[in-house]
């Protein structure tokens, strides 16, 4: 890591880890630099991975290249044969001032990476995680993420995950999570895969929400070529006044396919849930949406909306009347939908 200085215009206020500090980390310099370059491609600021004030974890394949803790946050990472086991603990009452940055990747063209993770967000704590998963050279890479997440009472966890899979479509990504949100807790997850190819994506998150808890799941993906996307978002609203949103925005072109299953259960009095799925298809792409709403308490209320269609003609013609050609106009519309 070598004690590089933080970019003065972006991180002037952050002190940088000293060479001695970075030397203590199990970094492997060349691979670290490769993964950092890839991290930048998903919008990450490399200086964050070197700052001692920012929680960070850098994993390439099954190697832990860097890890940093701050008071109140513990990060344990253990190398496995095909991946890494990670445990992140945020102590009760800890309010993380800056988002934690997690960087996962596979630099070679082929490989398997399994991330088995556990997150424990203590009572009253608040933490945001920004995960960057990059497979820039992938021809045949399989990335499996299995997470168990516990958001304590009145705690809040935000998990934003941005992927870059390169341009060949040779990546298979299987993110799975089981999340438990305690009373008054709040869990927000946003999974974004809108740059480059998708390859195969099988997203499957299940969240159990206790009384007054909130869960929000958002998936955004842009498939092309013969990409195949499966999204399954399940929210069980088990406690009184629990709330949940399962939202997906999928755009497809060429021969890409997608199936989105958004399921929300209202199992307790005054639980409120909503499933919101929009898919745009072009060319020979095929999209399915299966919203599932289930209510087990007559005081609960769960709604859904799903729309699949091609690009709106009026939007398209409006942009073309500004001089954009059809492809450019479609791209603006789809990027906008994925941004929203």
């Amino acid at each position, binding site marked *: 890591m070598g004690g590089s200085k933080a970019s003065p215009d972006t991180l002037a206020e952050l002190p940088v880890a000293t060479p001695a500090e970075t030397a203590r980390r199990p970094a492997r310099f060349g691979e670290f630099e490769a993964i950092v370059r890839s991290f930048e491609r998903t919008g990450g600021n490399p200086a964050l991975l070197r700052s001692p004030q920012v929680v960070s974890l850098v994993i390439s394949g099954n190697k832990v290249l860097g890890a940093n803790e701050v008071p109140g946050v513990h990060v344990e990472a253990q190398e496995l044969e095909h991946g890494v086991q990670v445990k992140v603990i945020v102590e009760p009452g800890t309010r993380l001032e800056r988002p934690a940055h997690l960087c996962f990747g596979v630099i070679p063209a082929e490989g398997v990476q399994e991330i088995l993770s556990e997150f424990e967000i203590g009572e009253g704590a608040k933490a945001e995680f920004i995960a960057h998963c990059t497979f820039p050279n992938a021809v045949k890479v399989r990335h499996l993420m299995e997470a168990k997440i516990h958001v304590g009472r009145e705690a809040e966890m935000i998990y934003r995950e941005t992927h870059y899979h390169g341009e060949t479509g040779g990546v298979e990504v299987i993110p799975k999570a089981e999340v438990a949100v305690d009373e008054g807790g709040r869990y927000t997850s946003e999974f974004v895969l809108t740059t480059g190819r998708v390859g195969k994506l099988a997203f499957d998150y299940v969240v159990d929400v206790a009384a007054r808890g909130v869960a929000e799941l958002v998936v955004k993906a842009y498939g092309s070529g013969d990409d195949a996307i499966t999204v399954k978002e399940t929210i069980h609203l088990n406690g009184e006044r629990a709330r949940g949103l399962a939202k997906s925005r999928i755009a497809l072109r060429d021969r890409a396919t997608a199936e989105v299953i958004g399921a929300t259960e209202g199992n307790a009095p005054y639980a409120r849930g909503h499933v919101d799925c929009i898919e745009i298809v072009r060319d020979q792409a095929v999209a399915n949406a299966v919203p599932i709403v289930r209510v087990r308490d007559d005081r609960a209320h769960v709604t859904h909306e799903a729309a699949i269609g091609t690009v709106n003609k009026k939007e398209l013609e*409006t942009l073309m009347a500004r001089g*954009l050609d059809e492809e450019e106009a479609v791209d603006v519309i789809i990027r*906008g939908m994925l941004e929203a």
Partner: protein
Amino acid sequence: MKNGYLLQVNDLHLQRQGRQILRRVHLAMAPGQVFALLGRNGSGKSSLAYTLMGCVGYTPCQGRILFAGQDITPLPINERARLGLTLAWQEPARFEGLKVRDYLALGMGKRTPERIAEALEAVALSPAAYLDRPVDETLSGGERKRIELAAVYAMRPRLAILDEPDSGIDVLSLDDIGRLIRRMADEGTSVLLITHRDEMVPVADAAALMCEGEIVRVGDPEEVRRHYARHCVPCEVAEAVEEAVAYGRF
């Protein structure tokens, strides 16, 4: 530019779903001119706008459209736009996730923050309040229409077709729109103003009246406005048809 006209429409006919929508439309606009096209709802004004812009489903079955001397009848929308022709829709589209600043910049040749802000100010909207708002359902109808006009103004086209820019706008705002139209003309943009409100006509240099898909009167704006007010509100053609039907002559 043949005959010095920026836009020439010659004997234009349009059919949609077996119905004759436009017939024998002739129109000529000089550069820098504000031309008001007046007519009741359903008279074919918007169809003419879409046909001039080249929208899908609005290909004329007869006639030609010349823009700066070039026959643009076979050209798609974006190629017409690149020649300097654009359209502000009567009910503008909404764009999820697209910010006003980016929307305004789309059609601009030279994109600068100053010019984007200037376009918003030209439609009496505060840049600080609107630049980062999305062009989506959160905008009111009036706000969206103003932003559409700002986008057209920002583009600095040679010819702007404004389809009912005054609809859904309160009376006080009509002055803002009138000022913007004159400003566009002063800065070199010709304006084809499509409206059914005769109080908008004084802003124009020339005017025409459209009825049942035909241009039935062309000339001085005040003369066309008076004719419209006298014979079209209420519509004498519709009354004559109703009378003929009632007496079994139709």
